[in-house]
């Protein structure tokens, strides 16, 4: 579904992604973990071309994405078209505050696919029901809790019927008691066969839902494997020290 080959990206001379290669099969759920600043967000943003890679090839659904045959970056309009097949959920939700919840979810089909309003909103209502927020349709995002906003953001991304969903720390900005509802929606999505790449610090979720875990550090994929392999028997010392610091921390929080 997604193939990344030798992806490199630097900001102002600092190498943030260093020859990252990665394959994600259809229906696979991949958890991406790693310390802050290791390039996880940049990797996801490159997959969606919110950042322009310095070099490397990204294929989505069998097609080279975002650049043409001669290696030139596509026009903004054609990038937008390609991007609509990849859903993305952000740490800070980024709902459109001037639109109601329903209009947020309908915004992709309406403004990108130019479907008519009734059709878009009907589908939006179904998606809101799916994330358990049917009754919030006519409110504005600012009237919702963070957890509810994030579920709306997931519904908004799903409305475009993406082939892949990218999650960038979807629960990191939430109060602990709101995390569960969002993770439940994501788990359901995974069980329904959605291809997902999830950057998260929720190790419990990764263990339970992800088929594969990728550990990133300093712009490189240090190690990857099944949750059992990574969590029980990490091969790399850096993975071990990261996991022990995260797991100790979570245990101390009492939320593990």
């Amino acid at each position, binding site marked *: 579904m997604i193939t990344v080959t030798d992806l490199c990206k630097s900001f102002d001379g600092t190498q943030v992604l260093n020859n990252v290669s990665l394959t994600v099969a259809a229906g696979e759920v991949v958890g991406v973990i790693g310390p802050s600043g290791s390039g996880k967000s940049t990797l996801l943003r490159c997959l969606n071309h*919110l950042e322009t890679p310095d070099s490397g090839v990204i294929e989505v659904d069998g097609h080279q994405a975002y650049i043409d045959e001669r290696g030139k970056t596509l026009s903004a309009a054609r990038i937008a078209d390609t991007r609509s097949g990849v859903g*993305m959920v952000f740490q*800070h939700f980024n709902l*459109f*505050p001037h639109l109601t919840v329903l209009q947020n979810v309908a915004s992709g089909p309406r403004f990108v696919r130019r479907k008519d309003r009734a059709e878009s909103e009907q589908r939006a209502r179904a998606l809101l029901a799916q994330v358990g927020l049917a009754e919030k349709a006519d*409110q*504005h995002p600012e009237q919702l809790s963070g957890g509810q906003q994030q579920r709306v953001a997931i519904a908004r*991304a799903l409305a475009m019927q993406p082939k892949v969903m990218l999650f960038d720390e979807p629960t990191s900005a939430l109060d602990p008691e709101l995390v569960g509802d969002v993770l439940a929606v994501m788990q359901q999505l995974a069980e329904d066969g959605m291809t997902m790449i999830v950057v998260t610090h929720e190790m419990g979720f990764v263990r339970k839902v992800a088929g594969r875990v990728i550990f990133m550090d300093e712009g490189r994929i240090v190690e990857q494997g099944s949750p059992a392999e990574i969590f029980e028997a990490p091969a790399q010392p850096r993975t071990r020290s990261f996991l022990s610091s995260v797991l100790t921390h979570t245990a101390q929080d009492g939320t593990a």
Partner: protein
Amino acid sequence: MSSLFDPDLARTAFPVLLRGLLVTVELTVICGVLSLAFGLLVALARMSPFGPLRWIVSGYVQLVRATPLLIQLIYIYYALPFVGIRFSPFVSAVLGLTLNVSAYLAEVYRSGIEAVPRGQHDAAAALGMRPSVAMVRVILPQAIRIVIPALGNYMVSLFKDTSLAAVITVQEMLFAGQIVSAETYDYFTIYTMVFILYFAVGYPAIRLVILLEKRVKAGYSGRKKLIVTPTGGVETVELIK
């Protein structure tokens, strides 16, 4: 006071001044609407990927901002006819005021557009919106809302600045006052009335801007206040009644 303010003159002058006020309001509304629209176009042109358009537009903005409005009006009405460009006083005033106010509004719009968090651009792009669609559907509605109070203040300024059109013989309220007082030499009575009439329109306008500002602060649902956190997230707090 009674010796200073002449009630009989006030009664005869009132309809004349009121006609002048009508022209003042007319100028304000016409130039207001035109510059709200043109200013937005100028702001968008300044962000255009097309270099020459950006340079032309930014030259225009700097030209306007670095010279006095009074001189701009005088130039259009008195100087341009020498190169064969001739407008009536009213059209000259509309042109001068609109070009002037638009340059300032363009800066206001631009600050509003820049105040919309990056996350909004990201979310619109991630859905597959093209840049123009994202601008119209996501960025501008928020940007314009942010700058509504500032736009309102510029409209009030415009209302006051229309008095400069008297210099190019537009028969707005100040000009009407000048005509009547030149006939009677009773500057006190006439200009007191002009003063009060400006205030009678200007003060409610200021109150309206304050009201708009409160509405904007009350959030999109009318009940909450929006806070953009340093990390680009958005938090809300209930307004204390």
